[in-house]
């Protein structure tokens, strides 16, 4: 149901500028690709949809993901488990295997 991909920019952490992660998330039976990019000032989240990519930006990863999943019927409560799972991995590493799915509501 879910999968994770490695950093899109493997050397990003060395540069200290940005770090991208890619995840598969599920909402109401549909699977989407979610990209999370961490910048020094905050987070950018984007979900690929048939209409095009969504976008959410915020200092808080929860609010960034919340905005990114809003166009596909998601929201803050859907963003919570995604980001909470990432928090459990050291340094929010993209190598975490604990990538959650968005629950059906």
């Amino acid at each position: 149901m879910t999968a994770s991909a490695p950093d899109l920019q493997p050397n990003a952490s060395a540069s200290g500028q940005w770090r991208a992660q890619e995840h598969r998330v599920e909402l109401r039976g549909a699977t989407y690709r979610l990209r999370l990019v961490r910048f020094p000032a905050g987070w950018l989240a984007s979900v690929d949809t048939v209409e095009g990519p969504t976008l959410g930006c915020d200092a808080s990863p929860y609010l960034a993901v919340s905005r990114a999943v809003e166009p596909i019927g998601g929201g803050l409560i859907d963003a919570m488990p995604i980001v909470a799972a990432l928090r459990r991995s050291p340094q929010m590493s993209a190598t975490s295997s604990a990538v959650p799915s968005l629950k059906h509501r």
Partner: protein
Amino acid sequence: MTLAQHNRRSAPRESALGSALAQFDGVADYLELDPGTRAILRVPKRELTVRFPMKMDDGRVEVFTGYRVQHNLARGPAKGGIRFHPATDLDEVRALAMWMTWKCALVNVPFGGAKGGVTVDPSRLSRRELEGVTRRFAAELQGVIGPDTDIPAPDMGTNAQTMAWMMDTISMHAGYTVPGVVTGKPVVLGGSAGRADATGLGITMTVERALDQLGSRLDGARVAVQGFGNVGEAAARLMHERGATIIAVTDVYGGVTNPRGLDPVALKSRVNATGSVRGAPDTEPIDNAALIAIDCDVLVLAALEGQITEENAANVRARVIAEGANGPVTPDADPILHDRGIVSIPDILCNAGGVVVSYFEWVQNLQSYSWPATEVASRLEDVLGRAFDEVWDLHTDRGIDSRLAAHTIAVARVAEAQQLRGLYP
């Protein structure tokens, strides 16, 4: 991960305000809120302090001090109780207003948070004096409170009669009846069916959900209840009606236990007659320390804050702790309970039944339409059930302490609303 681990901040922890700020800072750190949003949410939006004179029954003129604090209005009009208590001060009201913001957000009712109070011991006032203080304080709040701006409710030392006086005073100034200005009114004045038992019913509903998640049921569960005021009594009675065995109850004067079960209705009659459950027939005495350590399925804490601490958390033998009071478990006790696998239903979820039914009362007043008690209970179950599931999912799926999960959801909701509204001008 527990909220306490996120609360290592510099704010003084002794006061309610220190605790509220430390709690907020911990959650804001966890959420990585931007500095601007953090600065907005950390302080009250509006504070009012009033001093008003009253002629007492003996002819003296006494000056009283009252407060109303609106913490945040991003999600809707302010909502929160008014307390009459001799220890009430501005910092306490600030803290309680902030907690109301989080509570309303967690259960997703469209209110911001507020609180108010008058520094007075209501037990020392005659009925005429009490009505005078209430009406004069309400008059001082004219223009601050209102159905679209800030809706008070009863709290410590106030009740449905207090709200009736407040509603009448505001209505006299307006020139027409304004039922939606307060909630917790008598039913004949627009109060909601089910309001009196709402907090106890909410506790019962969340306990049922927690036990269900643990593969158990309230029917047949052994329950101990600390505190036998409005909240504790209702929780004990409603759980008893649903098949639970109430094995121990304490109040401010003492306690009683019977492993075969207590009858909450008989205990209530005894309290009405004697002022305490102490000495009820067919019971053994028990004190608070023994009640907290009693072997039971559910421990309902419906008395004071700070009852389970780092010192006594290891003594708890309940599977589920229901926080009917505000702050009955200290932050230092949280990780001990968490590590021992004891489920705590955090206060802003467990005792939210009151504010949810207050919301229902406000909606009914705005519609000039009243719902039957069955509809109120059904809607309460929907609202609290959804909130419980959201907290529980975050708690269990991700290993986050239930209190941190609840506050994370609440603060994030308010932060999101605040950011979407933007800054004016």
